[in-house]
């Protein structure tokens, strides 16, 4: 194809969009609404996924220290724990701190045990590098000296992992379903607009246009419709996500949770929406024309 023919197709696609006025508007707004939906849900789902991962990472092993252990022994134990391959870091929590926590959540029934009456143990809180290594760490820690007991909520952790995996899988299914749905709705909209232009295509063929020649402007038009349909959702998403992100993250300073950082995330999701809009727009256009071009 000659360069000037490509230029012609480009101009033609813009002209056609403009002259189809209402139809273009209706198609663009359908794409807009669909992609807005996709954008919002993708953002929610991906962030849920992120938070789930954060929660997982937050699982720790409690290593209870014998009451008879000396300070040096405690230090040695800490070192050993820290030198384990799977361990990220180790924190001390004294029995007094722990009792405070309990009293806090269980009412004042335990306050009488303050000081030496405290029935609890000091403990090291060990964070694993990989949440799945928790069990292994616990096992190894059990055999260490000065350790009276190890706990990591076997049940709780297993349950949590299971739940999070379910959440993630459901999220994935919803995401895929949503993307398919968006693709369907967008290409369907384009299909309807093309159905209504079958006579036009017919005439083009009758005056000697090849299928390729007819297809290009429609393909481009579909892509532009998808593109314009993606712009508003991208703008809205950016405008809404940024303030939410900064608010949410400043509220969660303490914890190891955070939303996805806007810098790659918004570009990524914007790219996805633009790609969906344009590719599906163009493809939908081409595919809907097949019937009319078959001769």
């Amino acid at each position, binding site marked *: 194809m000659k360069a000037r023919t490509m230029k012609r197709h480009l101009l033609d696609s813009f002209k*056609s969009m403009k002259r189809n006025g209402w139809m273009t508007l209706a198609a663009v707004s359908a794409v807009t609404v669909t992609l807005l939906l996709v954008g919002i849900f993708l953002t929610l789902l991906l962030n849920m996924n992120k938070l789930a991962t954060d929660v997982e990472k937050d699982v720790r092993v409690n290593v209870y220290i014998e009451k008879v252990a000396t300070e040096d022994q405690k230090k040695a134990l800490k070192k050993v724990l820290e030198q384990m391959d799977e361990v990220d870091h180790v924190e001390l929590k004294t029995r007094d701190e722990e009792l405070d926590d309990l009293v806090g959540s269980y009412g004042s029934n335990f306050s009488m045990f303050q000081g030496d009456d405290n029935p609890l143990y000091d403990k090291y809180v060990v964070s694993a590098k990989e949440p799945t290594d928790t069990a292994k760490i616990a096992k190894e820690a059990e055999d260490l000296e000065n350790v009276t007991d190890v706990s990591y909520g076997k049940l709780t952790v297993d349950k949590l992992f299971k739940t999070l995996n379910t959440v993630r899988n459901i999220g994935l299914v919803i995401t895929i379903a949503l993307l398919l749905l968006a693709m369907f709705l967008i290409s369907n909209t384009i299909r309807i607009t093309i159905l209504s232009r079958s006579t*036009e295509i017919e005439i083009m063929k*009758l005056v000697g*246009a090849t*299928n390729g*020649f007819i297809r290009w402007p429609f393909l481009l038009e579909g892509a532009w419709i998808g593109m314009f349909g993606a712009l508003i959702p991208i703008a809205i998403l950016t405008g809404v996500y940024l303030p939410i992100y900064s608010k949410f993250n400043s509220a969660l300073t303490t914890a190891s949770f955070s939303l996805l950082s806007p810098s790659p995330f918004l570009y990524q999701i914007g790219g996805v929406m633009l790609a969906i809009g344009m590719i599906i727009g163009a493809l939908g256009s081409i595919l809907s024309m097949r019937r009319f071009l078959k001769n």
Partner: protein
Amino acid sequence: MIEMLNVYKKYPNGITAANGLSVRIEQGEFVYVVGPSGAGKSTFIKMIYREERASKGTIKVGDFDLITMRDKQVPYLRRHVGVVFQDYKLLPRLTVYENIAYAMEVVEKNPRMIKKRVLEVLDLVGLKHKVRMFPTELSGGEQQRISIARAIVNMPRVLIADEPTGNLDPDTSWEIMNILDEINRQGTTIVMATHNSQIVNVMKHRVLAVENGRIVRDELGGDYGYEG
């Protein structure tokens, strides 16, 4: 140039509009196709540029064998055949200028040439002042003349015209006929379906009379022959 042998056309609804057509039209001929409404004139004509495919028989146009040719080749056939459609078939969203230019863009002519030639044919059919209008803004006869202009813009080797003066007054009709005659003189084969007996009787050419999908008369310099 155009050769039909035992051509039958049965439409999906069961109507047989070509019932064993055999005819040979040489390069440079001017042929009128006449006959009553519904006789099969348009069907005959549509088969020449393969808007309709024959159900049976052989059709050859130039080097193209319309029966065996692949769909991919059809556009190239149509570039050698200019067509004035009975219902004009203008693209509603293109201006008069763009409609005619479209036929040239299809063959990737260069833009400067397109501009020159389009204005030339528009002038020829007397509608140069309507370049920027859309088909819906034209009168019936004006649309018909645009369709004629588009058909001749590429200087095709064959010109097919289905009732090209149906919506024109006698004066304009004669102007158009003179243009066609001139084109014919330059070597273009012309096949024209018409109900205009005056034209057929005055501007003498070969006449094919079609009735019920059959050629019932084939005379050089014949009359219209359906006068009331």
